[in-house]
């Protein structure tokens, strides 16, 4: 036996929830790789496959036999093992017996750290056939997978994501013989249910290499990426045939690829009258209820058409199309019912109802929240010098859609529905726009509010949530952030940052906390301290997202983070020097300055006349120029120019010299330099 073989494992289950497929396939792969590394001392690439009923991987290049392993065992000293005549003693014989060898195989060598030769045997553990190793390990490895929401079935105690109904496991053309929860591994599997209506027998897979092809013939495309690609192609073709383009939704496409074994897009239509519903309602209703895409024209106006996936290659009698159209009509009928019912009452008349809708037990109702948001947005508008006249109106309107039927049905339409209802009540555009966009950004790369009023409302709403939750001790820790406060915090910072609004995050956080007032359960100074760390981290993350390199972010943040406009300008300027070697040198010098000044009390003003050495006099001259520069870019150029002279200074000058006056002058020079640096960045963090 020699050479290598390809291993194929497929766990065939009842339909696995689509959200678990990719993580489980990934974990299964890691498990396999760990096993191969440990037992076969090699690293092999693993191909993974998954479909609604299958989790599989294929690993080419497994050695047929595990390599032999040698192992040396040391025993008692020679004098105890061999007597004067050179014959083995009882001890010597026992040692040989212990390791299962004859005494003639015992050698005597002097191991490191011992004073005399000792008995030693070399044991060779023959490598075992890989097939055998796999048969032993696989049941254990599969059972040990971390399965989210594991279940039991039948009378067994075995747990997995869904019942396992078949196991296919081949090493080359040989079956790896093992049994898992009563299911024996074999060389066959099951194809698409449709295929088996005409072929009752299981599908034989002749070799690991023939896996995809064999299953494709049985109606299953086992590669998820391939299914996704086919769906995407068909989506574009069919959308064009319908006279438009797909309203893109990558997440929906992922899901569709995960819930079908054979990917086909089918097109359908709905009555045009439903186009009177807001676009968001149609897009959401189709995606949520029917996993269907909308089709829009070049201007972004929806067409009365939809596209969705089917789990079979064709629609022989048109049932798939008519069935999906039927369900969609029922759904849209419901949506229109909600839309009509909701509009029988002006949106803002629901403000009273918000008194009975709890926001947070300690923080009161949504009505209370709207009052806090109103005050906060008015204050923010006035400090930005923006028109705040409609601040109270939008704040009091923005949560009213939470008690509409439509948002009850589609929570993700919160805000959007409020805006759409106000628009139809002939509200001013800036008012309905602000309400509509105040939950933005809803994702890390989603848009931020486009209007001033919307931006202010969005910040006020999120900040009230963050400050309120911090004030009652609901602070995110580690991976625990059940109220998504980090996302809210990120939204606040992103809006400020991208709008270029010069609002001190700590100043508005303090205002928000004042608004929470007596509802707080923790002392305000503690909450503010926690908020400061939290917001500073959000700002740091924003800088990272904006693409600034690590040294730029760290050093710029450390020189002050609450003036976001200034921070952004400093980062921009610093980025130009990210790879400049002079800044590396500057960083070293900045660190030295920091260390030298660490234990020194602030001394007198700089008396440049006392400086003696040419290097320090040169530095003093440069300092004056540096301090005169107002512009960020120029300042950095000056700083870069400073790197050489600073190095020269430290090489030539002993700062803490004997002469107290000279020493004070040198310290004062360094302190002034440090101050000049900190106008831009803390260079000691530039690494």
């Amino acid at each position, binding site marked *: 036996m020699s050479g290598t073989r390809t291993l194929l494992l497929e766990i065939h289950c009842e339909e696995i929830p689509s959200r678990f497929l990719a993580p489980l396939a990934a974990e299964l792969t890691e498990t396999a790789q760990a096993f191969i590394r440990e037992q076969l001392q090699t690293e092999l690439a693993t191909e993974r496959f998954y479909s609604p009923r299958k989790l599989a991987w294929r690993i080419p290049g497994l050695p047929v036999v595990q390599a032999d392993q040698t192992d040396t065992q040391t025993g008692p000293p020679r004098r105890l093992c061999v007597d004067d005549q050179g014959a083995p003693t009882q001890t010597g014989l026992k040692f040989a017996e212990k390791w299962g060898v004859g005494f003639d195989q015992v050698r005597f060598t002097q191991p490191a750290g011992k004073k005399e030769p000792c008995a030693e045997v070399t044991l060779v553990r023959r490598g075992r056939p890989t097939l055998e190793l796999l048969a032993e390990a696989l049941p254990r490895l599969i059972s040990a997978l971390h399965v989210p*929401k594991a279940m*039991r*079935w039948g009378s067994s105690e075995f747990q997995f994501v869904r*019942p396992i109904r078949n196991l296919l496991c081949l090493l080359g053309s040989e079956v790896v013989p093992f049994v898992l929860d009563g299911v024996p591994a074999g060389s066959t599997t099951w194809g698409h249910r449709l295929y088996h209506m005409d072929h009752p027998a299981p599908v034989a897979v002749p070799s690991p290499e023939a896996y995809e092809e064999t299953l494709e013939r049985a109606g299953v495309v086992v590669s998820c990426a391939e299914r996704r690609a086919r769906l995407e192609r068909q989506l574009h073709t069919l959308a064009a045939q319908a006279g438009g383009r797909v309203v893109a939704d990558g997440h929906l496409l992922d899901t569709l690829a995960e819930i079908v074994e054979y990917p086909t897009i089918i097109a359908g239509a709905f009555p045009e009258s439903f186009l009177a519903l807001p676009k968001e309602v149609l897009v959401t209703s189709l995606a949520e209820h029917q996993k269907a895409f909308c089709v829009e024209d070049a201007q972004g106006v929806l067409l009365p058409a939809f596209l969705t996936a089917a789990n079979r290659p064709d629609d022989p009698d048109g049932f798939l199309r008519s069935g999906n159209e039927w*369900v969609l009509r*029922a759904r849209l009928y*419901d949506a229109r019912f909600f839309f009509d019912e909701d509009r029988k009452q002006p949106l803002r008349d629901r403000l009273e109802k918000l008194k009975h809708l709890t926001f947070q037990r300690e923080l009161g109702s949504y009505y209370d929240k709207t009052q806090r948001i109103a005050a906060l947005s008015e204050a923010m508008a006035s400090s930005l010098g923006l028109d705040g006249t409609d601040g109270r109106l939008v704040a009091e309107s923005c949560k009213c859609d939470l008690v509409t039927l439509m948002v009850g049905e589609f929570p993700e339409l919160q805000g959007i529905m409020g805006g759409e209802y106000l628009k139809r009540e002939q509200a001013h555009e800036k008012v309905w726009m602000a309400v509509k966009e105040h939950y933005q950004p809803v994702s890390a790369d989603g848009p931020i509010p486009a209007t001033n009023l919307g931006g202010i409302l969005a910040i006020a709403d999120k900040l009230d949530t963050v400050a309120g939750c911090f004030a009652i001790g609901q602070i995110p820790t580690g991976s625990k952030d059940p109220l998504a406060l980090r996302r809210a915090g990120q939204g606040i910072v992103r809006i400020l940052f991208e709008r270029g609004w010069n609002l001190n995050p700590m100043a508005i956080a303090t205002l928000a906390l004042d608004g929470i007032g007596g509802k707080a359960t923790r002392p305000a100074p503690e909450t503010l301290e926690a908020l400061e760390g939290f917001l500073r981290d959000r700002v740091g993350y924003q800088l990272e997202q904006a693409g600034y390199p690590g040294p730029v972010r760290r050093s710029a943040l450390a020189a002050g983070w609450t003036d976001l406009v200034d921070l952004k300008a400093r980062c921009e300027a610093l980025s130009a020097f990210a790879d400049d070697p002079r800044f590396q040198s500057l960083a070293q010098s900045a660190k030295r300055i920091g260390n030298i000044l660490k234990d020194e009390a602030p001394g007198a003003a700089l008396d440049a006349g006392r400086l003696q050495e040419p290097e320090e006099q040169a530095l003093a001259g440069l300092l004056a120029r540096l301090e005169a520069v107002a512009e960020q870019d120029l300042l950095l150029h000056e700083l870069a120019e400073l790197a050489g002279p600073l190095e020269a200074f430290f090489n030539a000058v002993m700062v803490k010299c004997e002469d107290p006056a000279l020493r004070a002058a040198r310290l004062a020079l360094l302190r002034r330099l440090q101050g000049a640096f900190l106008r831009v960045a803390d260079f000691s963090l530039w690494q």
Partner: protein
Amino acid sequence: MHIQELILRLQRFWADRGCLIGQPYDLEKGAGTMNPLTFFGALGPRPWNVAYVEPSRRPADGRYGENPFRLYKHLQMQVILKPSPARVQDLYIESLEAMGVDLRKHDLRFEEDNWEAPTLGAWGVGWQVMLDGMEITQFTYFQQVAGMDCRPVSAEITYGIERICMFLDGIDNLYDLTWGEVKTDDGVFPVSYRTVRQREEFELSAYSFEHADLDLHWQLLAAFEKEGWRLLKDHGHYLSGYEQALKMSHTFNVLDARGAVSTTERPGIIKRIRDLACGCARAYVKNVENVENVENVENVENVEREQAQPGAAKGEGVRA
């Protein structure tokens, strides 16, 4: 497909596969799971296959008989298979064929949908079964009922009768469904769902949204609870006690449909119902374990007797 025809076909199908055909339990309830045939049947080790139709009331879904898709009271066909068979999905698919669905022409998918009934302390994992994009069945592997692990696990299959009929016939208004045909000496008279049920939908919707006496319902909720615990604690009667939990559940649903239950009150009331239901379930399990031990002893004795008299085991010469 007529309503009654679908029910008859499903009952025949499951009876042929070894299910008892049960009857709806004659109290208001929100779902077939609440029928004692399921709630108690899913507990304990005894094999248990049962299928039945359950009229299920959802007061908040009432639409005065006007909405073509929603009902205050709809019909569920409920199947419990304990332990869940290895071929359970295949059996289910065969039941679709028995309904007259030719799966060669349709798209069938099992999409994740987990189930939870907080008033029963029950949850399971499973799917909504989609036929051409329409949810036609809930399919659940019970993991816990009444806060107790299910050993063995039951499979629960719940068919929505009206929806399936509408879908099979491509009808856009459920009141246009045909319930069945009445044959008399004068001819054949098809009877619509409208004739059988629309007035009931109207009155029941009006009752839960307008006419129900809320004070009375709050009093009833408390009274049923008290009665239930009295039956359970003083008499060890878990069946009559459980009936009171069912009554509490429906009373709560009526109050809820009226918006009379605040979000803060809701979890507390659900817990009160669950506590009573779970108390009844624990008493049931304790009782059944005792009974089954006795039954097992009897079975052993029978076997011994049969072995002693080989003729009797084959039934020779035995007459009652």
